């Protein structure tokens, strides 16, 4: 059972969406996206119709990403559990809704233009996280993530 957060967890999601014709039907996605969970950062590269790479990254890498998604660890857990329960994000747990529910936003960027990739590819990124409903997630201990 893949552990969230980890490269293995994101790889499992990557493998699901890359085989999913519905993900392809949403259209091309060209973006470099970060996911920041406590002290852990992951880089997801999307190119054309697939997620081509997942790797662990550092704070320095954030500057080269279009944007990154950041929220407290318990909020990540809440989001992933909501997706698991509903088969996809419920109305109150979509990425855009979460983004507007935090003063600093869920989607953050050093670049006012590149951040718009969060909006341009919003439904594909949502679909990526929605695919986590298809796997069983084991959550890492909070201390391991924040360390």
């Amino acid at each position, binding site marked *: 059972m893949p552990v969230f957060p980890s490269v293995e967890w994101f790889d499992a999601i990557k493998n699901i969406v890359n085989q999913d014709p519905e993900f392809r039907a949403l259209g*091309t996605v060209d973006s470099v996206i970060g996911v920041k969970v406590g002290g852990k950062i992951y880089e997801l590269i999307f190119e*054309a119709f697939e997620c081509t790479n997942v790797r662990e990254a550092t704070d320095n890498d954030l500057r080269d990403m279009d944007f990154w998604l950041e929220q407290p660890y318990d909020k990540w857990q809440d989001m992933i559990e909501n997706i698991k329960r509903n088969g996809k994000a419920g109305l109150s747990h*979509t990425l*855009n809704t979460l983004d507007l529910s935090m003063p600093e936003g869920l989607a953050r960027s050093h670049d006012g233009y590149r*951040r718009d990739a969060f909006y*341009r590819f919003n439904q594909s990124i949502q679909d990526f996280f929605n695919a986590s409903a298809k796997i069983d997630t084991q959550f890492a201990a909070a201390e391991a993530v924040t360390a």
Partner: protein
Amino acid sequence: MADITTIPDHLRAKAQEKGWPDDVVQQALATGASADQIIGYMNQGVTAEQARQFLAAQAGGGPEPSDALKAKAADASWPLDLVKRALAMGAAENDLINFMDMGVTAEQAQQFIEQGGGGGASFQVDLSWMDVPTEWNTRAKPTKHGLTLEAINIGKYGDIPDIWPYQTEMPRGAVPIPGVEGMGYSIFEKQEVWSDACAKLYEEAIQRRWRPATDVPWTSIEPLPDDLERAICQICTHISEKEQLEADVLGRWEPEISYGYHEVKLYLATTIFENARAVEVFRKRALSNGGGLGVQSSGWAFRSIVDARNFTEMVAIQMVLHDSLTLGQYAFGEKFARNPAEKFIFAHCLQDKARHLSYGVSHLKYVLLHRPERREEIQRYLDKGEGMLVQDDKKDPSTRESFAMYFAGGKDKIADGLQVYDAMRKTALGQYLARLKWATLDRSQRLQPGLKAYLGS
């Protein structure tokens, strides 16, 4: 047949040059054609064989029709000499029988033959177009994204000039011919329209399209309290009006842009389509749940778009200023959506609007990098656009109040909703300034005071 006629020397010389035998020239003269007319036919490329067939057809010559064809012609009331002329022009017996079976009258056949029969002497093979000096042997290769506009921008075809010198609709990379009429384009400078993102955005728009009629989960909409239904219907009215206006404005600019910048023309075409899709989907929402349309907008802000006198002015006001605020409406609409259908509508319009913004902002950056002296000019366009927008805020309570009610969940909570409305404006204006900063335009100190007030809230 034709009388033997003397061939003038200059006609004989031309006939020899073109390979026309004397007997064909003499037959042609015998029909009454002048030497100059015959030389004209020769210069058009009419061959001796074509001329011979034509003259035979004119004289009623050619192969003798079969008995079956004669019988069919009699049934169809086609005169025999007409049938013979058609055969002389190369028509097959079976074809003629088919035409008769189809009900083609003798009169129609006569007209067809007199017009050259679609393959007669008046329709000549030229083929000079095959010897055109364009860049040949081009082999664009599909990428992971397929065969995109960027993938075919290779060699001369990818050379996008700073100034496009042609008034006609000649495609970039083709060869101009003299005498073609102008198409009335007025934009011939790359910096006036270009964005380095437009080819990518075009492909993205094509790939990420969606269909309101069948993709939106319409049946998820359930009856709403009257005040909430009125609020969403007013929002739909406002957005439909705004998106239609944007489509109309872009449609007016399309024919101004010369063909040298086809990537821009194509991208703007997708924008118009997406504006239309937004009009469609919000109108459908308004008319799908027991409500209807609301009041029209006061239109102050719209005037600043319609009145734009140059392309970059329109882009700055419509595709950067207004679209930043519209994107804010879509993002907050998605957050506060009452059902999956409205969630879907706002979320998908959000994606489309972000592309429009990407073009607008990257166009401004291109202009400012290549024509830095236009910086103050663009600031003034935004001064004007923001000023008109504030007028709308003051004079158009319907938009502000309907969004507030929708966000808060009803008329009795409108005060809470107005706070969310202000937060929406704050978010949108903050993003507007961040986008302009990326385009190298600092507007933080120049933002219209009526809008700046939102940032302090």
